């Protein structure tokens, strides 16, 4: 086999790529080691080591960019001789999805993550000053772990990493395929292609944002580790602060983009489904927000130093844990979106455990050396309530971690726990109390002053926003018919968060935009929670059966029916609209269904078209067909439609005969056959046929077959097709069960075998095409998206303000600052 000389292959890509992969790994290790030496020997004599560290990290950076460039070229040139290219791209794929192909697979997304950390590392290298050596040593070590994920080497029979430059014909699972006997196989193949589900602009912007968010957790982490290592316990927090809020903003945006993607084009039925993969991205964000606020407390009050270490460390560890969850295949049946195991479970586990142990050891060793602040936080101080908020976030995070980790605890303890049945309801119930506390703290937080607050002023300032929120909440509860106590409480706290922060901005900050960062971020958070609460709790399924038909015959279990059958041309009432299914057409790999929404004028009884939605069924050879929703956005609500079932065999124009092709069946007495909607038993043969009734001649031979039919609803029917021999001609008399749309024909009796031949034809239901549709109204979901925007803008403003202040602080005489830092000693 090895003697075949293949034509058309570009081996150079693989050689180049593998060289870069090795270089990136080796250079990261070298950088880590050199920076380690530099950090260990303080000051002057460390200069050569530091220089080597910088050079090595630069080489690592170039190597990572080299890997990416090589992979881009391969994908762009359709170099299907490489497995990764074959697996993720194809000739027919539009060029704009080249980026999406790049990070569709595990290897590409690891590379994306590595790339962002290279970028952040280069900024850190130039800005970390006294922390450069220890921080970069740790960061390079993280990079070495990430780079090792691409190695694809076998060490002692264990594969380390999954290499993106492996050749298609060398992939173990494809060995011995006859195709590779052909020297020119390459000219005959096409790539498998990007999963059509991911051919979506969200796939181009969501992963980079999310991974930049993940990557940014590394900076506060390495600062914290460096602070412990170099015993500069209180010196790094100020530098880590803007990094943290940058990361909080990016990761938050990435998570919400995922939510928007799920809402717009995946069939989750909402923007947040508490899927384990979604949870995995949310978990570190919660503690990251905690970390940011803990750093603010420390900056202002030099208090809670232990927490300034714990929060960034926990956040980073949770990112690693999330990575383990989503990429090791351990989630198995509990998530449809997780990667399947590609043999890296052990390696991911080592990565996770290594950094847990490293952090734990450092924290324990240095714990007793941490400067203790003698004073206790005042009850009425901003730091106290901020700290409390951070702890509530940790608790909320913990609940999500524990439940999402059910597959892990099953594996570790040999348990048999299943994920919650009503997952969304379950998580919502547990998280709403946390959300109530957090939004309440968000409302009052800024009104507290650091150190101590004049309670009189505090109450006075908050009275107006409080009363206003009570009023608005009452009005909106009546409007929305909200009755659940928890929902009402959460609606109140989120209104309170909005009004209180708005008042704070206009009064305390004199409506100065640049200084309004924190208030806007908090206000935006209040809006997000409010939008999420209203749109989920008041979501209304309008595709309930209003036609009056069928319902009685359906029998049991129709109470929870949320999907409606729409025949082409039929008009049914849905909520405030009347809805018609007008037809379908094909575009590329999508089948678009046209669902026309009509308004009915109550006076004239005339219908006027309001809008058309085009929910899609995507013909997806990789995953099976996938339904994509279609949503109409209004200012105050969204109308969301989603195809639950469609018979793709029916042509849209309704051509074809009334009955489909007869399907033959051969059975004896007591045997069973089935159609798509029922089970049919041949009960008996019946020779006493009423010949007059069937218009038969007296000398005709006629035998009936008694068929017992049970339909999907357990309803029973009996019918009797007749086998007739008239003048030596076989003239079967068919029997039709119109309710089921079935036609039975008794074709033959085989006297030797005692078996009978039948055919069943299924009616095409008066040739009408139909769909089973789910339609849902999400009220006020725009509040949520608007809140996201406000929160992001607020965070950007806050970061700008922090950087500006840090620069101003630097211009002050240096003694003033260091004195303040050292005070707790």
């Amino acid at each position: 086999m090895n003697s075949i000389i293949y034509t058309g292959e570009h081996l150079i890509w693989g050689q180049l790529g593998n060289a870069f992969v090795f270089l990136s790994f080796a250079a990261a290790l070298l950088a880590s080691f050199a920076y380690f030496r530099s950090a260990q020997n303080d000051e002057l004599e460390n200069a050569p080591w530091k220089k080597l560290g910088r050079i090595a990290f630069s080489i690592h950076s170039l190597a990572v960019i080299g890997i990416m460039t090589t992979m881009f070229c391969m994908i762009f040139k359709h170099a299907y001789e490489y497995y990764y290219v074959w697996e993720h791209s194809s000739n027919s794929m539009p060029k704009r999805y080249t980026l999406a192909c790049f990070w569709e697979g595990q290897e590409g997304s690891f590379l994306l993550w590595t790339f962002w950390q290279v970028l952040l590392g280069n900024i850190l290298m130039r800005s970390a000053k006294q922390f450069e050596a220890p921080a970069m040593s740790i960061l390079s070590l993280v990079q070495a772990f990430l780079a090792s994920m691409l190695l694809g080497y076998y060490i002692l029979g264990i594969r380390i990493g999954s290499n993106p430059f492996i050749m298609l014909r060398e992939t173990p699972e494809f060995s011995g395929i006859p195709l590779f006997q052909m020297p020119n196989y390459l000219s005959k193949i096409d790539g498998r292609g990007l999963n059509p589900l991911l051919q979506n602009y969200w796939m181009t912007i969501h992963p980079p944002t999310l991974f930049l968010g993940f990557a940014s957790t590394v900076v506060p982490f390495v600062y914290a580790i460096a602070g412990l290592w170099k015993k500069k316990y209180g010196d790094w927090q100020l530098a880590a602060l803007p990094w943290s809020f940058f990361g909080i903003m990016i990761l938050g945006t990435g998570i919400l983009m995922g939510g928007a993607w799920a809402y717009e084009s995946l069939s989750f039925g909402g923007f947040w489904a508490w899927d384990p993969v979604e949870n995995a991205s949310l978990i570190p964000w919660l503690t990251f927000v905690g970390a940011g606020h803990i750093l603010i407390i420390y900056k202002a009050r030099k208090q809670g130093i232990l927490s300034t270490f714990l929060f960034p460390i926990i956040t980073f560890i949770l990112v690693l844990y999330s990575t383990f969850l989503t990429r090791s295949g351990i989630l198995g049946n509990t998530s449809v979106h997780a990667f399947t195991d590609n043999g890296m479970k052990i390696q991911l586990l080592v990565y996770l455990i290594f950094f847990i142990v490293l952090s734990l050891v450092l924290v324990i060793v240095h714990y007793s050396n941490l400067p203790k602040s003698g004073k206790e936080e005042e009850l009425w101080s901003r730091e106290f309530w901020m700290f409390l908020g951070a702890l509530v976030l940790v608790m909320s995070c913990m609940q999500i971690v524990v439940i999402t980790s059910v597959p892990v605890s099953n594996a570790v303890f040999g348990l048999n726990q299943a994920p919650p049945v009503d997952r969304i309801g379950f998580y919502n119930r547990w998280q709403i109390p946390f959300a109530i506390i957090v939004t309440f703290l968000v409302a009052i937080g800024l009104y507290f002053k650091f150190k101590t607050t004049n309670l009189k002023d505090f109450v006075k300032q908050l009275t107006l926003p409080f009363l206003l929120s009570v009023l608005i909440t009452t009005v909106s509860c009546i409007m929305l018919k909200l009755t659940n106590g928890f929902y009402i409480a959460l609606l109140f706290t989120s209104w309170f968060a909005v009004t209180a922060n708005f008042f704070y901005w206009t009064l305390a900050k004199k409506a100065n935009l640049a200084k309004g960062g924190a208030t806007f971020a908090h206000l935006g958070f209040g809006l997000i929670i409010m939008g999420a609460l209203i749109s989920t709790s008041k979501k209304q399924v309008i595709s309930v059966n209003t036609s009056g038909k069928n319902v009685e015959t359906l029998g049991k279990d129709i109470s929870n029916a949320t999907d409606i059958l729409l025949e082409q041309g039929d008009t049914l009432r849905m909520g405030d609209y009347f809805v018609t299914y007008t037809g379908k057409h094909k575009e590329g790999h999508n089948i678009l269904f046209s669902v026309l929404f009509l308004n009915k004028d109550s006076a004239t009884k005339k219908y006027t078209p309001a809008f058309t939605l085009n929910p899609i069924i995507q013909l997806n050879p990789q995953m099976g067909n996938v339904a994509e929703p279609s949503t109409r956005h209004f200012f105050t609500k969204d109308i969301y439609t989603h195809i639950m079932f469609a018979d793709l065999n029916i042509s849209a124009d309704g051509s074809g005969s009334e009955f489909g092709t007869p399907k033959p069946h051969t059975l004896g007495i007591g045997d069973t056959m089935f159609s798509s909607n029922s089970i049919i038993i041949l009960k008996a043969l019946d020779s006493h046929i009423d010949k007059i009734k069937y218009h038969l001649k007296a000398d005709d031979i006629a035998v009936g077959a008694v068929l017992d039919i049970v339909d999907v609803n357990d309803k029973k029917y009996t019918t009797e097709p007749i086998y007739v021999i008239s003048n030596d001609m076989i003239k079967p008399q068919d029997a039709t069960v119109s309710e089921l749309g079935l036609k039975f024909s008794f074709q033959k009796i085989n006297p030797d075998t005692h078996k009978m031949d039948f055919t069943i034809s299924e009616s095409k239901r008066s040739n009408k095409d139909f769909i089973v549709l789910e339609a849902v109204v999400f009220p006020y979901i725009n509040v949520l998206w608007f809140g996201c925007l406000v929160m992001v803008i607020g965070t950007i403003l806050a970061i700008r303000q922090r950087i500006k202040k840090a620069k101003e602080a630097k211009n002050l005489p240096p003694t003033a600052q260091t004195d303040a830092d050292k005070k707790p000693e």
Partner: protein
Amino acid sequence: MKKIHIIAILIIAIAFGVVMTSLSNNSTYASFNEAAAHPDKVYHVVGKLDKNKPFLYDAHLNANLFTFYLIDNKGVERKVMLQKPKPDDFEHSEQIVVIGNANGTDEFKAKDLLMKCPSKYNDGKPTENKQTGSL
């Protein structure tokens, strides 16, 4: 930092409570026989589709009822009544998880269903690209 200590203890206690209660609310994986022993409890049953038995769906009769036969991992077969439309590509499923409770001794009423298709994320081998072939 006394106050903080009290709060920390309180929070640990609440967190413990949260974790324990939310775990006890969980359903468990079970076989059909175990599910039949507690018909009021909701279980996850993992199994394979019996492709020799009928699976029935008729949107005109009932858009939200799909019935099929599932063999659980212990080899026990039950008729499953899923209260949803027939999922796409159902026939190709390799493994099925039904979530619901037993309905009498020989039926299982499923509120939801998860499928694992062999094709998911990993499909097929490289084949010759036939220019003349139809789509």
